[in-house]
């Protein structure tokens, strides 16, 4: 009599599948070997998403025509967009301008190095919400319909502050790595310390480890600014506030910082460079 229920499960095929997928997973996580393929599929999915919006937009237009308000609606939408664009641009320019004034006061001899950089505004195409809410990978995609040439590692600003850096271009989309991504390091400073803050893999959270002497001078709610070290981000731009200080050992403490600009609440982002 059979001791177990009969089944026909050839293990060979499963073993091949298992080792193949394990190998692919390892290559992807360790060496990012399939970044281009994934980027292509991600961009295609975004295209599909945008294309699916076209029929809905058409339907909206038809209904507006029937109600004889299409011109007003279009003009209204256009003006709203322009106002948002101007507000965001003005905000960023103001921020950059005030930072530059500070630098000019401090370093009068270095005026030539402080030329105003150009700002290009891009509308958000998508945010990888699944990973943003659960996991360490925090990326967003910006629409680049004119296929402007955007370099990698340029700072990306939202309404009030920096939110991340450009990472890659996929077709008409720009991939942006957010500060809260666990792979990202941001040079920051507070009144009492300088450090490279790493993303915590949680929305709006970054952290860094400081020594006990520095942490003794640090308080919750202290503002955190970019230090400008590394030359990518302009110095003295507020990026967040300290919300927690955890003592890790006798010598070290972990400072947890909450970023001020939430990318989920923004539609336009400026790339500075």
């Amino acid at each position, binding site marked *: 009599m059979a001791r177990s229920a009969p089944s026909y499960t050839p293990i060979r095929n499963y073993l091949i*599948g298992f080792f193949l*997928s394990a190998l692919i997973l390892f290559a992807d996580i360790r060496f990012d070997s399939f970044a281009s393929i994934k980027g292509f599929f991600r961009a295609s999915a975004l295209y599909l998403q945008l294309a699916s919006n076209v029929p809905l937009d058409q339907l909206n237009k038809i209904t507006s025509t029937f109600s004889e308000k299409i011109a007003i609606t279009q003009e209204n939408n256009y003006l709203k967009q322009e106002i948002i664009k101007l507000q965001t641009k003005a905000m960023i320019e103001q921020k950059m301008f005030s930072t530059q004034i500070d630098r000019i006061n401090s370093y009068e001899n270095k005026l030539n190095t402080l030329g105003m950089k150009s700002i290009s505004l891009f509308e958000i195409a998508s945010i990888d919400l699944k990973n943003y809410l*659960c996991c360490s990978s925090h990326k967003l995609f910006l629409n680049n319909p004119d296929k402007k040439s955007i370099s990698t590692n340029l700072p990306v600003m939202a309404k009030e502050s920096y939110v991340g850096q450009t990472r890659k271009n996929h077709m008409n989309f720009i991939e942006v790595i957010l500060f809260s991504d666990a792979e990202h390091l941001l040079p920051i400073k507070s009144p009492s310390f300088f450090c490279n803050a790493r993303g915590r893999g949680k929305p709006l959270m970054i952290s860094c480890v400081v020594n006990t002497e520095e942490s003794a001078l640090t308080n919750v709610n202290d503002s955190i600014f970019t230090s400008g070290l590394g030359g990518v981000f302009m110095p003295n731009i507020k990026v967040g506030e300290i919300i927690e200080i955890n003592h890790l050992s006798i010598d070290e403490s972990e400072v947890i910082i909450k970023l001020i600009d939430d990318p989920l609440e923004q539609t336009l982002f400026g790339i500075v460079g």
Partner: protein
Amino acid sequence: MKINNYLTILGTIFLAFWLENFINQYSINFYIEFNLGFLVFSYWVFAMHEKLQAFSSLAYGVVVDLFFFSALGFNMLFFTTMSYLINLYVFRFRIFSYLQLSIFFSASSIFYLACKYLLFSPLNYSYLMLFNSFIFNMILWVGLYFVLRSFRRKFLSM
């Protein structure tokens, strides 16, 4: 099995992953994560174990990885392993009660979730979330089982 049926199954898995993404945005605040996509895939293997074996599991895994932005290979690995486990014990499962089945499938989905967090986001790993998700995925499995069974009987001709 006809190619249409494979595509229909893929469609349901896609829909489940899309729904899962949508629901989890809100449920994650309560330390609950639904594994709808993984459970739907598990159901199809459980219900059609002779048709869905190693290769189809691998293929579904690739597609899900590519379109749902996971690391390539993650869903492939778990789909293949789950498919093997189900195929190995499928006849024993036939004599299991709904409760036992839901415990098994929910536990598998929690293992999947735990590995996902350990690999991609160890800082967010939480036992409370795993426990809550286990309970809710158990309930979800029972509902899914009946919905997908009636769907299979109505729309999938072998």
